[in-house]
């Protein structure tokens, strides 16, 4: 009984599927035509993207003076958005790498889309530091290139340079991990394609994958080792992002708890984004039998745990700041000063969206409900944006010298770029959903006999 699985475990693939059914279901969105809804959402996303391009072009042409930044608040929406997007990316790697190491079979229904989301989110994240340079055409100075190219050697003591290395490693390794996993699925689409153009494209994409026994052996080993490499990598990325703040001497930023707290927050927000995307996608692409209530519930459990870690970090930051007795700590983003000051709304948005509302997921009825899960995911996405906004803007607005205290007002360009990245993200994701095998069908087939509903019920009722 090599395929035995305890009857108490709920099936991960619903319906009585055969291997061929799985191929059909995964290929259907690629071979079919897009419906009205797809075009409607795609058009909106494309318009937002174009607006964003306009705002970026205006920024580059005129200078970052067109943003709402001022003398004191010299980082604001741009870095908020950067950290928000990069954090969202973390869930994909967590699902594909960490859950692979823990041998969690439920990751197979969702890993492909989660990784796609990672890559698209990191694209958005990478845009912000680039345009924030002001002179984007000198962006290559962040690379370690000889002095003749116009810069000194890069400064390897700087967390901002660590970011360059961390994010480019993260992006490139994620792409390679994703693509290697896609090869057998592209090959499946290639071998069943009837239109010559489609066949040509998928032949190219599948890199000539054939599924030989030795290739599969290497494939599995490579996946395992990549997972083992990606796990510390993903932890390092948000750790290094948190160093941008933690190695400074700004009150509220200079905090040793930042790395683990940022990583937990990143996974928290990332799972919320996976939830947002997949609850829609399972409906639109008819994948309800592969992305089941159980997947959603499991993700909600991860959200609950990481949300709990984040909440404990908030409380400890709040307590330690207060307990230090330092008057500067009275106005950091987690303090009485912040809760009652001009940014009270941002403070309470953070506490309510990240700390209070997610606690409802302790109730099984709510965390297994699709509508509640979807709304909760949106709330968490908003809350995690506010977390980064609070860390950056509230802390900078209340510095060491009270006469420099100020507020931040975003301009239409700030808003335009942010909305533009959301548009760009959805443009990429919607194109992906129409052209890529959105479920790792080869992996799902390998667990069909142990975790498929049909096989399971036949075995258990024997």
């Amino acid at each position: 009984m090599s395929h035995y699985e305890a009857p108490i475990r709920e099936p991960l693939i619903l319906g009585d599927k055969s291997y061929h059914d799985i191929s059909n279901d995964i290929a259907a969105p690629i071979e079919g035509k897009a419906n009205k809804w797809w075009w409607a959402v795609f058009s909106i996303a494309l318009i937002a993207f174009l607006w964003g391009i306009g705002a970026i072009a205006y920024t580059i042409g005129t200078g970052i003076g067109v943003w709402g930044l001022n003398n004191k608040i010299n980082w604001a929406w741009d870095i908020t958005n950067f950290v928000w997007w990069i954090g969202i990316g973390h869930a994909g790697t967590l699902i594909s790498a960490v859950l692979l190491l823990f041998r969690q079979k439920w990751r197979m229904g969702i890993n492909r889309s989660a990784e796609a989301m990672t890559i698209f989110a990191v694209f958005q994240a990478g845009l912000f530091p680039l345009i924030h340079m002001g002179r984007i055409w000198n962006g290559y100075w962040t690379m370690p290139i000889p002095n003749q190219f116009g810069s000194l050697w890069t400064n390897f003591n700087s967390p901002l340079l660590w970011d360059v290395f961390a994010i480019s490693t993260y992006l490139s390794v994620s792409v390679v991990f994703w693509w290697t996993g896609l090869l057998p699925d592209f090959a499946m689409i290639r071998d069943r394609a009837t239109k010559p153009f489609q066949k040509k494209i998928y032949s190219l994409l599948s890199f000539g994958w054939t599924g030989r026994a030795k290739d599969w052996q290497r494939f599995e080993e490579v996946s395992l080792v990549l997972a083992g490499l990606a796990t510390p990598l993903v932890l390092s990325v948000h750790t290094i992002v948190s160093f941008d703040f933690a190695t400074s001497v700004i009150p509220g930023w200079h905090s040793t708890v930042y790395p683990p707290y940022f990583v937990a927050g990143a996974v928290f927000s990332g799972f919320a984004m996976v939830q947002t995307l997949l609850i829609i996608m399972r409906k639109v692409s008819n994948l309800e039998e592969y992305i089941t209530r159980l997947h959603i519930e499991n993700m909600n459990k991860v959200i609950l745990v990481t949300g709990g870690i984040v909440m404990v970090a908030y409380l400890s930051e709040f307590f330690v700041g207060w307990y230090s007795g330092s008057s500067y700590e009275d106005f950091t983003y987690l303090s009485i000063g912040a809760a009652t000051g001009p940014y009270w709304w941002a403070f309470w948005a953070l506490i309510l969206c990240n700390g209070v509302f997610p606690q409802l997921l302790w109730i099984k009825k709510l965390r297994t409900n699709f509508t509640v899960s979807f709304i909760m995911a949106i709330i968490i996405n908003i809350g995690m944006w506010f977390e980064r906004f609070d860390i950056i803007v509230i802390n900078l607005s209340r510095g060491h010298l009270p006469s420099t205290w100020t507020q931040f007002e975003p301009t239409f360009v700030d808003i335009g770029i942010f909305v533009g990245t959301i548009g760009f993200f959805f443009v990429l994701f919607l194109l992906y959903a129409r052209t890529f095998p959105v479920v790792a069908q080869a992996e799902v087939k390998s667990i069909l006999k142990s975790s498929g509903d049909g096989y399971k019920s036949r075995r258990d009722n024997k």
Partner: protein
Amino acid sequence: MSNKVIHAVFDDDDVLLEAVKNVREANHHIEEVYTPFPVHGLEKAMGIANTRIAITAFIYGLTGLGFAVWMMNFMMIEDWPQNIGGKPNFSYAENMPAFVPIMFELTVFFAAHLMVITFYMRSKIGPFVKASNPDPRTTDDKFLMEVSVEGDVNELTDLLNKSGAIETKVVETH
């Protein structure tokens, strides 16, 4: 050496595994097995040695680590030492804590990319490579075993059919 092979198609992974064992017990040589997904225990049943790709990843990782140390030592200590934040770069060891993040990142970067490139080269996959699976159904739901014919064709065909093959085909190889 004969230049004929039999392509036997199976529609179930468990049947395939049994068949592989039967064919090997009868002292036939299995050239290749094509499967739509990784069948656990197949490489053991076929007698394929363990892959050493993880070892290469380790070596590539060490290379990346070494490269990172060499690069930062050259740029920050030897070629253009700077006093940054009151922390003069006299020696690599004293400044090492600040260099750890990039030592780590380059270790991962080298290990991951070079391992995947090694995988693609060893398995002969990559952009513009044409697929060579003999039957397009092997990426969907069928399993194909390629057995070289030595001696009686009919005997081998019988064995394969008895082991659960749904189709068998004799193919000339060149």
